[in-house]
């Protein structure tokens, strides 16, 4: 294992700049805009966390995954069920481990439990994903999405089936959402700078050459998948503890597509791309929604489906004009005074 200091340094700089931006976004929404948009700020921060979590695998490996919605669901349901009051939980969910049956977990224990289950699930699925041929993985992740949706939708004793969960306590504050998102982006930057992350990028660029030079594609993909899954579970748990109520439709193809759209628009190859895409599409969606509400009030036609349509249009435009995404698939070059190489 050989860590490159140059890579670490630029990752640290990127993370620091991003952290400042995230604090700015959160502060702007929390204090400057109306309090109602405070919720939008939390939502945006969590969305950034989800997209960056997905980017860790998809961006570094270059393999599209639809299956990450599975980790989102695991994080959300585990945290949601664990944090709920037993009195509310009992008539929705019956399959609860006995040690949890008569208590409800606080924010951090619920998060921890969600991450622990997320690790296990990511390791289990990653074992198989890492051993698959590259061309097969995207299909397998699609299968994972379908399986997840159906389990969540049908396992009534554990998830309350298609009715979803209601009465989840709203424990996520803006500052906590901000903190978790900063941690997630930090982990993503660190992974991209790590030897394993770099090897995963090498397999993305040329799998045959990477193998021929000693890179274990299986190992690199496993660790990328594992970290990615854990980060998405974490974001999913924070999301659930903000949502109050949610249903299986949240873990469907449409939702996964929306998250992937953000990643594609911003640029798969970089953490900053994931953030850019998440912010751009969230803002766009909010604008359109506000516009639609205004239209509805004035009695005009509401144009349903406009959000999906414009998302699709933006993807097409971006793919034509900037195929690697708004950030061009790389971390932006931040010109800092560089120490001259001693030669």
């Amino acid at each position, binding site marked *: 294992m*050989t860590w*490159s*200091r140059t890579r670490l340094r630029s990752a640290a700089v990127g993370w620091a700049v991003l952290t400042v931006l995230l604090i700015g976004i959160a502060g702007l929404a929390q204090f400057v805009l109306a309090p109602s948009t405070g919720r939008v700020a939390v939502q945006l921060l969590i969305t950034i966390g989800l997209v960056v979590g997905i980017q860790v695998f998809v961006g570094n490996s270059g393999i599209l995954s639809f299956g990450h919605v599975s980790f989102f669901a695991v994080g959300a349901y585990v945290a949601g069920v664990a944090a709920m009051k037993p009195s509310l939980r009992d008539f929705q969910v019956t399959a609860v481990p006995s040690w949890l049956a008569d208590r409800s977990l606080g924010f951090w224990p619920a998060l921890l439990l969600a991450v622990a289950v997320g690790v296990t699930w990511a390791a289990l699925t990653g074992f198989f994903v890492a051993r698959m041929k590259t061309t097969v993985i995207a299909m397998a992740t699609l299968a994972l999405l379908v399986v997840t949706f159906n389990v969540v939708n049908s396992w009534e004793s554990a998830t309350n089936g298609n009715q979803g969960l209601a009465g989840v306590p709203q424990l996520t504050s803006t500052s906590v959402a901000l903190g978790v998102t900063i941690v997630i982006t930090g982990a993503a930057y660190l992974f991209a700078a790590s*030897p394993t992350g770099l090897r995963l990028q*090498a397999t993305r660029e040329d799998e045959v*050459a*990477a193998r*021929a*030079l*000693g890179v274990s594609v299986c190992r690199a993909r496993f660790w990328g998948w594992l970290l990615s899954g854990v980060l998405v579970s974490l974001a999913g748990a924070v999301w659930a503890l903000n949502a109050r109520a949610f249903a299986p439709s949240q873990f469907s193809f449409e939702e996964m597509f929306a998250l992937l759209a953000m990643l594609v628009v911003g640029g798969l190859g970089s953490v900053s791309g994931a953030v850019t895409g998440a912010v751009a599409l969230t803002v766009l969606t909010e604008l359109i929604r506000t516009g639609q509400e205004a239209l509805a009030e004035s009695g005009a036609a509401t144009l349903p489906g406009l959000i999906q349509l414009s998302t699709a249009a933006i993807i097409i435009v971006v793919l034509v004009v900037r195929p690697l995404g708004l950030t061009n698939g790389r971390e932006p070059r931040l010109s800092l005074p560089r120490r001259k190489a001693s030669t």
Partner: protein
Amino acid sequence: MSAHPVVVNQLGQRPSSPPADRLIVDAVSKSFGAVVALQDVTLSVGRGEILGLMGPNGSGKSTLVNVVSGVIRPAAGEVRLDAQVLTGHSPDRVARAGVARTFQNVRLFKGLSVSDNVVSVMGRRHPRGADARALELLDRLGIAHLRGARAGDLAYGLQRRLEIARALAADPFFLLLDEPAAGLNDVESADLEAAIRRVAVEGPTPCGVLIIDHDMRLMASICDRLHVLFNGRTIAEGGIEEVRRDPEVVAAYLGRS
């Protein structure tokens, strides 16, 4: 060479394994359908030695490199590092055991920087750090000043150099170079020759080199020994002059085309 048979699981545990002295290709055969690509080919390279593998197009040179690097499994015969059998292991394990390669059509990690191309395949910790090691390797091939550039943006000749630097970053005992001078002009290819010699024989830890090419002039100037394939069979091997005068080699090179 150890007296005990090498435990297969130990393959690829580079830092703990002792350096290998000889790469041995032992009676390797391979067919693709009815086409015989390799038939009973035996050769070996020592560390610090440059062996040229020659032959007209379609004579089986690239197939042999693919067999050695674990991409293709031979129908018969085996490849060994000293007593350690490489055949049957995946390419990444073969590479970690100490055999690195370049490709006939350059295969860099195009989207990564020049420096990252080299750092990404480093298998072990270097006392002075990955960056210093990368700089040293790039410097040995004369491309240190380009370390921040995107690999795909380099000129073709420089890409070939980077590929060699990257192969060396895997700390190989043996280096397989598949047509390293293809597509280069005379000046570039002379430069590259010098670089290969410098890197292979004069480095602090010399490795053995197996170079593939069909250009007799280039090969004669850089190799210690030559091995000539024709239609998958060995038709000549030995010193440069000896091989050059070999009637079968002359016939293979001049007679047919």
